[in-house]
């Protein structure tokens, strides 16, 4: 029996809708599951106290601080390098062997599993440079890890700026650098910010690379050379060692809510930028 085009259309609408709905449903299910198990344990004291008895009791304040320090420092290091690389690739050089090598390098870097970055960070930053297990070693490792993302998203954002903008700017006698800073980066900033925010998200959720570089100290990190334990690693330890599933879920809830908030902030920033410039 042949199915008429009109019926095929109806079937496909339902099928596509169902598949699309599954994506959203999966997200909502995971969110709901984690928050259902975790939120009841998230209290003010859980957020503001230090852990006691390996995390069975007390809170996660040092982990929140540690996560913010590692992720913040990583993006502070990788952001400028990544954006500068993207500017160089798009505005200051011609397509050729060198750009191909840089791009290929960035792509390869993006494909390396995070545990390998962890191993490298351990050998190089922790041992060779003598940083020890520390916020700095973790941040540098993550910086290398997210660099390709920042380069690629910035590069695409810069390429999406109409060529006519830079032509006009140069035509008015602006230098290349004035053109880049006043016209190109301005128009590309929503895309660049998006890439950086995605990178913050990746830093916050990274576990394997930090196990070997930032360590898992329960103490509050007081400087970049102290060891710290990030939220994701705390969750992993609590669960893996069976210390406290309740606190593990609570930590996961905090992690998820933070990432959602960061995404919301990113959307808000982007919309503001777009509204202002267009």
């Amino acid at each position, binding site marked *: 029996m042949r199915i008429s085009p009109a019926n095929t259309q109806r079937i496909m609408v339902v099928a596509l809708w169902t598949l699309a709905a599954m994506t959203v449903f999966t997200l909502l299910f995971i969110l709901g599951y984690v928050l259902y198990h975790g939120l009841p344990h998230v209290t003010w004291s859980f957020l503001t106290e230090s852990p006691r008895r390996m995390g069975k009791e007390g809170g996660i304040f040092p982990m929140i601080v540690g996560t913010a320090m590692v992720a913040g420092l990583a993006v502070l290091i990788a952001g400028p390098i990544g954006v500068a690389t993207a500017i160089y690739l798009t505005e200051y050089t011609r397509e050729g062997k060198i750009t191909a090598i840089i791009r290929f390098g960035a792509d390869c870097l993006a494909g390396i599993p995070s545990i390998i970055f962890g191993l490298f960070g351990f050998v190089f930053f922790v041992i060779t440079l003598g940083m020890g297990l520390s916020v700095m070693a973790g941040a540098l490792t993550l910086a290398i890890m997210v660099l390709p993302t920042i380069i690629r998203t910035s590069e695409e954002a810069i390429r999406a700026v109409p060529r006519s903008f830079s032509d*006009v*700017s140069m*035509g*008015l*006698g602006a230098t290349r650098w004035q053109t880049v800073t006043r016209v190109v980066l301005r128009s590309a900033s929503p895309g660049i910010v998006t890439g950086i925010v995605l990178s913050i998200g990746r830093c916050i959720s990274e576990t394997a690379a930090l196990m070997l570089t930032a360590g898992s100290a329960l103490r509050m990190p007081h400087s970049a050379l102290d060891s710290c334990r990030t939220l994701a690693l705390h969750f992993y330890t609590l669960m893996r060692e069976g210390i406290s599933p309740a606190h593990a879920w609570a930590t996961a809830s905090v992690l998820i809510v933070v990432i959602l908030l960061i995404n919301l902030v990113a959307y808000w920033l982007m919309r503001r930028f777009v509204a202002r410039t267009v």
Partner: protein
Amino acid sequence: MEYKLRASRLNLHYGAFHALKDVSIAVKPQMITAIIGPSGCGKSTLLRCFNRMNDLTDGVHVSGEIRLDDQDIYHSPDLPVTSLRRRVGMVFQRPNPFPLSVFDNIAYGRRVHGLSDDLGEVVRSALMATRLWDDLKDRLDSPALDLSAEQQQRLCISRLVAIEPEVLLMDEPCSALDPIATQHIEELMQLLAERYTIVIVTHNMQQAARVSKETAFMLLGDLVEFGPTTDIFTKPRDRRTEEYVTGRYG
């Protein structure tokens, strides 16, 4: 008669393609000179030589000489390309304001040249020069992209006028506009020609005939004929010019 811009034996290669062949042309000050010719004849390329916009394209090689007043624009150490482009500005085919406010668009050129004094007055007189002031004086903070196509093109001309150039290069400035707007921009060009030297590239022969005093006809990279506009259109010396202006090809 003195000359404002003068190209002598200008050759331009784009990779292996010989885009301009031994072109010599002298543009007189404070009047409109038109460059006409079929698509791909090199007229825009020639225009883009006058403020070295071709430098921005990969694979372009220029030889020969262009002088602005008495300075060689490619080789004078005291005429860096940024100063050249301040003196010889360009209006592009499509209106292309920055996604900024009306005010910031016009102030842009002043700011990159470090001339940030009296911007309000500069913006006002630049808008007066293009007859936009009355329409826009209350909308200086609104986005330039909200304006109509004609207003955008006028704004682009204002943006140029604000840096007080000497020469305006116009690369088919009306090709994205409707006939009424085209007429308005042509009237504006006549007005501006009292103060500025204008070189316009156009594929519209009637436009060249209407606005310009002198016309150059180009074909396949050659400057075929250059002279008073009336001569080019009524008694061309070259057979190819005649065929083009009578619509035999192009």
